[in-house]
Structures are given as C-alpha cells and as structure tokens.
C-alpha cells in the first residue's frame, strides 16, 4: 500500500513525485509508456514563459510566475540545460501595440519583473534579424528556455533516488474505492493508495472518469514545429513571439538550449494523441515565422515534429482540485512546463489539506550531475578518457556523445529502454544527421547492455520496432 499514486510521468507527474519525495511519504508513479516525458513533455516549445499571458488571479498566472522562479534553481541543482534568454512579443500594427500594453499591465499584475516595451528600432538593435515591419515589442527578461525532457527526467530520477517507485509500461485500466483506499487496476496488476494524483495529460479526463463522475473533457490541440540545424541557432538571441490570439501564443522563433532554432507551433484540434505533421500546418508555421524573422533558412531544417496540448474544454485555467483523496492536475496546457514545480507544490498542499501527513525526509538528496563530454575542456576530456576509456569512443558524431555517457544513462536511476530514450538522456541522434550514423551503434550498445537481441530494440514506444530479423547471412553478433 502506498500513500500516494501518481498517474502519468510527464513534467507534472515527475514534479509531483519530486515534491512528495521530500517527505516521508510512500509514492508510486505509474506511466503507460516505456519512458518518462513521452507525451506532451517531449514535444513543445521548450519555453519557460515569464508569465504575462495568463489572466491575473488565475491559477495559471500565480503558478507560472512562481514556477519559472523555482525552475531556475531546480535546473541548476539537477543539471538541466537552462538558459535565461528572455522573450519578445512583437507588434506589427497599432492594435498589436495596444495589446503589448495590455500584456505588460497583465504581467505586472501577475508579478512578472522587468517588463519593458521597446520601439521597433531598439528591438532590431538587440535582434538584428527581426523584420523591418516590427513596430514595437514587449521584452520579458525572466523568460527562459530549457530541455523539457531532461527537466522531467531529472525530477523523476531525483524522486526515484529518494525512494519513489516508478512503474513504466503500466497503463491504468480502472480505478475504484475499496475499504477507504483507492484501488488502481493496471495491465501489470493492482496498486492501492490513500491518495491519487491524476497527471495523465491528454488522458486526464479518461482517468478522472474512472474514479469520479464526469466533470471535464480534454480537447487536444496539436502544434507542429520545425527544428533547424545549429547553423541557424543564432538567428535570434531571445524567444520571439507574435501577439497572442484565440489560437494561443502564436508562432514563435526561439533558440534551444541545445543550440538549434525551434519554429512553431500552429494550433489544430485533434482526436487523442495525434502527433502527425501536415503539409498545411508546416506551411502555416513557416509563413508566420518568416513574418517575425524573414531570414530564417528553412533549408536547414533537421526535423519536424508535433505535440498535443491538453486543453480542457470547460476552462482556460489549470484544473487543480481534490475530492475524497483524488487529485486532478488536468488541463495543463501552456504554461504547464513553466508552472510545473509550482503546480507540484500546489498539489502537495491539496493533499496536506486532505489529511496527508507531511514529515520532511532528513536525508532528501537533491543533486544530479552527468558527464557532458562535449562541454569539457581538452584537459578534462583527457583526464576523463584516461580514467574510463568508454568516454573516448564517440558514438554520435553530430552532438559528440560518447559511449561512456550512454553507459552512464544505462546505469542511472531510470535506464533507457529505447533508442529515443537514449536520445532524451544524452542527446545522441539529436543532431543534423538525426541518428543516421549513431542509430545502429546505439542499437548495438542497448542490445549488449540490456541483454537483448538487436531486433528486440525499439525506436521509441513499444511497437516501434526497427529490425524484423536476421539477413540470409545472419547476424554479425553471433
């Protein structure tokens, strides 16, 4: 029996597990996929928003501003790539200039520090590649960028190191209340706990409906993106937005913490977790981005992807509520990534009010470091390779990722089970050749270390098989 079961290990589930792991509470996280961060968390703009968008007084406003402040410290402690790059909202018309004033006032009401409206000339001096047609811009110094999947992984790993249990490939099929406890049925048996947290993202309505009467519906909204080569990574220095409209925050152009340029998203209602891209969607994104930054070289594209926002139909705010020990964390669309650690604090507060005893763990261990070979000096590299020759074998040539780093991940608290899980941990395959070179080598390492045959290794989720069998000549590994 557990004190708390968290359903879903995206950024919200991981942050909740992390927050609870600070206390003497037995926590289990159930995740249906074979890795953490495998839904909305891995496919979004990777922006930590300053907090001028949400309406003052909303949960979103409060938790966004607190969340980004917490993120800054957390990312540092947990070795998560983070850069305070600041953001700009561009205005192209007098009406949009008025919108900037509204956003600024909203931001100030929300407690966002340092907001400033810049003239077109001033903003082009800071960002020379912006369009000549920009009349003014709202500058927010506290906006930042991060690696969302490593953020989620770092929180989940820290929770696991501090005693939380994580069950991957464990899909919730039913929930009932029995003898004062919540009983959770899954494809891997039953789990029970006094409290449940529903952090199931796009499936949060379905999970809620298993435990309680229907109350809200998630209306997934898909956003499509371009990721561009590092050659384009300095096209802009800060995250560049356009004025928000009914479809959300509009198409942005932003550097990423990995040195690439990200462009997107559009907004398109979809059914379920439909993350396909479309010719129309990508064309829309391209056109809008060129309005802000006319020189973006789309010929340098290395990947397209799409993510699904978990909008609630009934409210534009987050749904954070508790009843009978069942806690919903639903409708976590943007700025969910920004707000995550503050959402987690809020959820724990809800549990406390519902009777969960919170005694701090004296030995809570909140630190995480990993080797990033690429970022080391020649002297550090030499020393490292001498200590452990596995750091001398470069597996991913685009991102300079070594076998040693992949082995570290395989021996970490949440070992990767697929090629993409390796990518999310060490960046192998994230570069311009998109795993064309390192893919077969990562498969070989995974097979060797996990004691599997290469044809058992998956690209990503279960079912994403890579190899269907041996050739007539047979495997080279026999």
């Amino acid at each position: 029996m557990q004190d708390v079961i968290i359903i879903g290990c995206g950024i919200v589930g991981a942050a909740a597990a992390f927050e609870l792991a600070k206390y003497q509470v037995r926590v289990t996280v159930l995740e249906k996929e074979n890795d953490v961060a495998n839904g909305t968390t891995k496919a979004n703009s990777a922006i930590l928003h300053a907090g001028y968008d949400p309406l003052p007084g909303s949960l979103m406003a409060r938790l966004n501003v607190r969340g980004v402040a917490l993120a800054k410290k957390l990312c540092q402690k947990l070795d998560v790539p983070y850069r305070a790059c600041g953001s700009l909202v561009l205005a192209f018309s007098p009406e949009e200039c008025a919108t900037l004033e509204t956003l600024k006032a909203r931001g100030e009401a929300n407690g966002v520090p340092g907001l400033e409206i810049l003239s077109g000339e001033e903003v082009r001096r800071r960002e020379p590649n912006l369009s000549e047609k920009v009349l003014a811009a709202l500058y927010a110094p506290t906006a930042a960028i991060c690696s969302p999947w490593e953020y989620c992984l770092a929180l989940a790993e820290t929770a696991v190191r501090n005693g939380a249990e994580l069950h991957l490939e464990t899909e919730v099929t039913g929930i009932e209340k029995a003898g004062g406890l919540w009983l959770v049925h899954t494809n891997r048996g039953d789990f029970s706990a006094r409290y449940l947290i529903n952090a199931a993202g796009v499936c949060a309505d379905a999970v809620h409906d298993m435990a309680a009467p229907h109350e809200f519906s998630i209306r997934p909204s898909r956003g499509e993106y371009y990721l561009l080569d590092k050659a384009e990574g300095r096209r802009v220095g800060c995250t560049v937005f356009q004025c928000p409209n009914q479809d959300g925050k509009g198409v942005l152009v932003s550097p990423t913490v990995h040195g690439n340029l990200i462009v997107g998203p559009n907004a398109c209602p979809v059914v379920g977790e439909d993350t396909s891209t479309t010719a129309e969607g990508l064309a829309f994104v391209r056109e809008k981005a060129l309005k802000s930054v006319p020189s973006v070289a789309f010929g340098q594209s290395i990947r397209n992807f799409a993510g699904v926002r978990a909008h609630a139909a009934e409210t534009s705010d987050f749904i954070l509520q508790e009843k009978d020990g069942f806690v919903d964390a639903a409708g976590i669309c943007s700025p969910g990534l920004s707000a995550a650690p503050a959402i987690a604090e809020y959820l724990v507060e809800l549990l406390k009010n519902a009777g969960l005893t919170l005694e701090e763990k004296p030995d809570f261990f909140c630190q995480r470091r990993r080797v990033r070979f690429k970022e080391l000096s020649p002297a550090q590299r030499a020393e490292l390779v001498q200590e452990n020759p596995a750091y001398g074998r470069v597996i991913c040539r685009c991102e300079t990722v070594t076998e040693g780093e992949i082995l570290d991940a395989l021996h970490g608290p949440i070992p990767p089970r697929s090629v993409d899980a390796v990518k999310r941990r060490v960046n192998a395959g994230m570069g311009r050749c998109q795993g064309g070179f390192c893919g077969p080598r990562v498969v070989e390492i995974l097979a060797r270390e996990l004691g599997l045959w290469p044809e058992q290794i998956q690209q990503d989720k279960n079912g994403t098989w890579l190899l269907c069998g041996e050739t007539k000549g047979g495997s080279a590994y026999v």
Partner: protein
Amino acid sequence: MFDLIVIGGGPAGLAAACSAWDKGLRKILIVERDQELGGILNQCIHSGFGLQYFKEELSGPEYAARFVELVSHTGVEVRLDTMVLDITPEREVHMVGKTTGYRVEQARAIVLAMGCRERTRGAIAIPGTRPAGVFTAGATQRYVNVEGYLPGKRVVILGSGDIGLIMARRMTLEGAKVLACVEVMPYSSGLNRNIVQCLQDFDIPLYLSHTVTDIRGKDRVEQVVVSQVGPDRQPIPGTEMVFDCDTLLLSVGLLPENELTQQAGIAIDPRTRGAIVYENMETSMPGVFACGNVCHVHDLVDYVTAESQRAGAAAAEYVLSGEETPGRVIEVKNGPGVTYTVPQHIRPQRLDKGCGIFFRVNRICGDSEIVVTSGETQIAKFKREHLAPGEMEQIHLPRVLLDKAGDALTVSIREV
C-alpha cells in the same frame, strides 16, 4: 609533430596518404573513427567499383582493401576508433579514441577526407506521423550488410540516388518486397547502370516526378502516400497512390560533412557545401587540403581516388617546398546550366600542363557544348552528346589558355 595528418580513412584519405608517402613524406598519420579503414566502402558489398582506376570490377571492400594493402607497405601511422574533434588554425588536431585517449597532434599539413552524410526526413519535411521504419538508405545498408539485420519487409524508396537503387536490389535479394522507387525530379539522379541492374532487372517501378506526401502508422510505418508533382515540384491533388509498407528508405541526397572545416574557419562554397579549393585541392587555410566527398559529392570512388592523390601530392609538396608567395588567382564561376565547379580557384603559375575542372549540370541535356568564357571572350569549347545532373563532368584547360585568361572564368552549357 607529423608532416601530414589525414582526417578520415576512407578511399579519399587512403589515396591521399599513399600519394603523400610516394612524394617523400615520412611522418604521416591517418585518423579513422571506425574500427577499420575503408570508410563507407566497407558496407558497399556490391560490385562496380574500380572500372576506371583499376580497369576491373571490384566490390567496395575489395577496392578499399587494395589501398589498405598499399598503406600497410608504407610507414603511415593509422589510429582507428579515433575521432577528430577540432582543428585549429595552427594546424593542431584534437582527437579522441577509446584506446588512443585524448590527444592533440601538431601537423605541418592536413588533408580533410571526412566524406559525406545523408539527408534525412527532416531536411525535406515529409508530413505525416513519425513511426519507426523511416531509414536513410545508408543506415539500412549498414544494418543489412554489416550487422546482418533486415529493417523491413515491404519497402518504398524515396529518391533514386545510387545508394537507394543499390538498396532496392539488396533488400529484394534479402527477401523484402520493394514496391516502388519514387523520384521527385523528372530524371533519376543515379547512374544509368544502377537503374537497369537494380530496378528494371527486378521489375521495381520507378515513379519519376513523384514524391512521398504522407507517412502513416502509429508505431511502425503502415502506409506511405505517393503523389505526382508538377513542374514546380508541388504535389498534384488527386494523383495520390497509397502503398501498404513497413519501411520507407530515403535516398534524397548527400551532404559533405564539413563541421570540422567550418569550425576551423575554412571558407565553404554554398554550392558544393564543401571547402572552396584551389587547383591542388588546397583550402582557404594554407596547408589544409580537402578531397573526396567532403569537398564535393562524387559519383564514382575512382574519381575520389584520383582527386585525393592530387591532394596528397600537393600536401607533400607544401611540406617539402614550403608555402609559395601568392600570385595570380583565377576565379571559376558557374554560368547557365552549371550548378558548381571544383576547383573554384586556379593559380595558373602553379600548373605544369593544365587543370581539370569538375562540375555538374542542372538538367538533362542532349547534344551540347560546354563553353568556357573569360569576360566576353570564349576561350574553350567542348562537345558532349549527353549531360545529366547525376553524372559529374570534367573538362581540361591547358596552362596556355589559363595564362591568357582574365581573373574570372565562367563554365556554362549551351544546348545545340
């Protein structure tokens, strides 16, 4: 201190190292990131290599083995499983390897021979889902020929580059069903012999002026949609064909692998995406040479060998005779019908007899003239019966002509 460090132990690097040894250099190092020499040739187990250079038909590994053998009879040092991470303008080469450790080696001259990589799905923005089963043709070739695994059983191939064509045959021989080869251009970019031997001989249809417009499948590829494209290369609605398949292979172009080159500050030609080179394959950084597919993508390894031998010899000359005082430089430009030229710069005073110019055309041409002009003056003309973008062309300009030319030459195509 090495006289010469060669980065890459594929056909380009091997030929350059041998040639530099023959010219008298004795302290030569080849750095190769794989566990054996030979580069991509090791996974090219089909035949057709060496017809030009050896006048016999060899497989890729056989072709490589001839040069590996030559190198083994020299004193050239080879470091395998070692990756070069950085080249400085002072010609220090940073490298790391599992057994060789992290080292910084000083070189008098450097030959860049890192080859090229494949374009991916992201580069051409194919819409659809992102299931497993979309591979580049080269990665598939590695799985099948080196690792001994088949990545799928029902296959559509996008792009009719040579690797795609070769893999159409290879997958068929391994028991997979290759449903179609799809090419966005109205002509194939592969060699004609490969179209005949790899597609026609196996009844694999080639759809010219077609492209993949949708990929379907949640976890693994289940279908791809192929549409005809108009002269603007945009899909024509209503022409969709759906193929039930589990694999999409991409053979949509090769890109010279020039990250090290760019980091070092060497000038790159946006047309070739390789270093800008002089007549002797020297780059904008004195003492640094580039050859093979890192410089521009070749059709035949035989041409890579010839070019790399020139680069190796020039590197040796650089080390043995020192840097020459700069003289006159002729810029070579591409005119109508030509997409790039190599070399981009010629120093006529450094030539004995003349200079070969390699280039590609931008469309299929019948009876044509290759015209070389200097300003308004036509200085040379070469006749060809057939020109195609998939086939690298070569002309030779004698020194006497170059001496008379101005500071810029233009190579263009005139159909007659």
